[in-house]
């Protein structure tokens, strides 16, 4: 198997790219894509650590399943909020949306 650090390096780079997308993208949907990238990076970390160092424990797989569940919930609610924002403000540009109430 490839060295553990290689997989962790992929995970770190994916996390950094997700953070860049989250902070710099002006479109709210694209910022949400950044969150998904970061969650995937964290999941990859869990699975790699399980496979290389704790192959007799299932904790990591359970954690990944829960993270996937929460990511699905987050995507559903987040995109519903974005649709609501679009209906009220006519834009999903995060730089132009400054109000918490309609």
């Amino acid at each position, binding site marked *: 198997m490839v060295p553990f*650090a290689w997989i962790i390096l992929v995970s770190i780079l994916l*996390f950094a790219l997700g953070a860049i997308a989250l902070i710099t993208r002006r479109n709210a949907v*694209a910022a949400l*894509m950044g969150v998904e990238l970061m969650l995937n990076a964290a999941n990859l970390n869990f699975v790699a650590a399980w496979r*290389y160092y704790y192959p007799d424990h*299932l904790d990591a797989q359970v954690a990944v399943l829960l993270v996937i569940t929460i990511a699905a919930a987050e995507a559903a609610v987040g*995109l519903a909020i974005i649709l609501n924002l679009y209906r009220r403000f006519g834009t999903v540009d995060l730089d132009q949306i400054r109000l918490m109430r309609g």
Partner: protein
Amino acid sequence: MHTILHATVFGVLALATLGGAVKVISTRSIIHAAFWLFPVFAGIAGFYLYLDAQFLAAMQVLIYIGAILVLIVFAVTLTRNATSTDEAQTNGLFIPVLLAALVLVYALGTTVFNHLWPIESNVWLDAVPLSAAVPGVMVTDVSALGLVLLSQYLLPFEIASVLLLAAMVGAIVLARKERTPAATAGVAAVEAAPADVRELSNV
């Protein structure tokens, strides 16, 4: 030979994942960025398969590619033309954030490489043996995961299912088209109220 095969598989998966992620943050068209998420999610599913987590790979394909990706594409098409491709897609923070991300990568990378892992982290390994999680059940079996999920991790499992239900109801309530501005205060309450109260709440 063995090593070359593993390196090739890893290279292809890493290229799909990271290349897709770079395109996600650099593509001007938001719908193209959404489609570039596909190689990222598929690459991560490939990593799960490579790491012997078959059930997680299946879940990754089902939930991330099958549900979240489709949801994002829907959201993009429903908010189409909200930001056109000829205006800047990033705010003015791109360069500082890029530098901060490089610092983050450097810090995390050196930490990983310098940490004293139980097995040294940057050496090639023969396959780490997979041992039995529950006596008689292989750790990669779905049944082992099911047993753990419904015994040791029953509470997180139940909380996650309640959370999914709450998220579903919340998403429906949030995304529903509102008939009056007062609907935020509860449509049922407004409709039950007399006409003059309804007018007041519309102000």
